[in-house]
């Protein structure tokens, strides 16, 4: 197979797949074409897509490659009525999700210990949105359920994999940012 043929086939495959395609999966479809060659072809494809005047891009997300629209086109895509943008996550949702993402697998009790508030409702919302899932149980007393993030989570935040999450701040760093981080009281008495 020639180079430009491979690029063409990859483009068609990414278009049809509708989900991230890993190098391994692409190699499987392409009957054992070397993953190195596939990666090179994908890089070429990505460069073509990065030319001016394109409404699409090749992104590496949730463990694979996928075709996506460019954010500049978002207003017109939203005008295509049937696309509804997902409601944004609430503050408590983001907070809970951050704990799940960094501490997974994690129990509800551990989440609540960090947040200092009951988190059952938020967890339910995250489960329903398929951003968080039950990944098993912790051994020991009560065998509580463990929560972790999903592939949808990676998609939602445009992450390639969990390793792409920025490192959590050290306590020292956190402490340094604390004063004058927020505007003073909003009490307008």
């Amino acid at each position, binding site marked *: 197979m020639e180079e430009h043929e491979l690029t063409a086939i990859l483009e068609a495959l990414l*278009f*049809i*797949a*509708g*989900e991230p395609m890993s190098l391994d999966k692409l190699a499987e479809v392409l009957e054992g074409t070397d993953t190195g060659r596939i990666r090179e072809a994908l890089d070429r494809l990505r460069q073509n897509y990065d030319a001016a005047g394109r409404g699409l891009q090749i*992104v590496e997300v949730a463990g694979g490659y*996928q*075709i996506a*629209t*460019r954010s500049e086109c*978002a207003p017109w*895509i939203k005008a295509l009525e049937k*696309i509804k*943008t*997902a409601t*944004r*996550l609430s*503050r*408590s949702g*983001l*907070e809970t*999700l*951050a*704990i799940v993402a*960094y501490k997974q697998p994690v129990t509800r009790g551990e989440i609540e210990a*960090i*947040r*200092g*508030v*009951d988190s059952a409702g938020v967890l339910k919302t995250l*489960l*329903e949105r*398929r951003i968080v*899932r*039950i990944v098993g149980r912790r051994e020991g007393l009560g065998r509580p359920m463990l929560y972790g993030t*999903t*592939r*949808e989570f990676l*998609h*939602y*935040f*445009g*992450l390639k994999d969990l390793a792409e999450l*920025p490192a*959590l*701040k050290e306590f020292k760093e*956190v*402490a340094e*940012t*604390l*004063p*004058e*981080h*927020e505007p*003073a*009281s*909003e*009490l*307008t*008495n």
Partner: protein
Amino acid sequence: MDDSQTAYAVKLPAFEGPLDLLLHLIKKNEINIYDIPISLITGQYLEYLGLMTSLNLAVAGEFLVMAATLIHIKSKTLLPPSETDEEEEEDPRADLVMRLLEYQRFKDAAHGFESREQEWREVFYRPASHGTDGPTGEINLVDMSLFDLLEALRGVMDRTPTIQGLEIVVDELSVQDRMSLILDRLESEESITFTSLFDDDTTRLAMIVTFLALLELIRLKRVRIIQAELFGTIRVWKNTNLQPS
């Protein structure tokens, strides 16, 4: 317009919980987190709870628990340091500081998530191929979660409310059943590996039952076990010659 009402117009910032409120007070007062003036903060914390009550807002239990914690810490700091203890006593505020810092870490992380969310909400993917394969609503096995499984189960149970006791019953196969299963497999395959017998045993109990079944088959001379070389693969063969050799 009644002036006495507008005079008391109060806008309260929203807090996720007691830790969030405490962090707000610490920032507002520009306090060093490692040296929290506990009287001042306790006072302001209780003031806020009082404000919530006066506005008829339900004060969640967690806020009250924290109030008790603060008062407890305050009382400890008021005690004169005991002279008998040689070791330096632990700062009663230490635990709280750790909790606040830990919580702030995740608040910062959540903040980072928020900006990523903002960015990626503007990017759209094409839904899976509009091709010929099957009805919509299919789930990719990779994306399946226990939540989906339980939701599906709940869906069925809502439809047929008479079904009771849908609770997990661990595989109750008898030794006899396992024996027939092993023999069934040996009908289609000449020999099978020892380990493959346990491939589908999902509990310890099931593995024990399978092992007992194998022992029984060996005793009855229905199967033979052969290990061609030391540490080699152990294979189970059907014993075609029923006469003991």
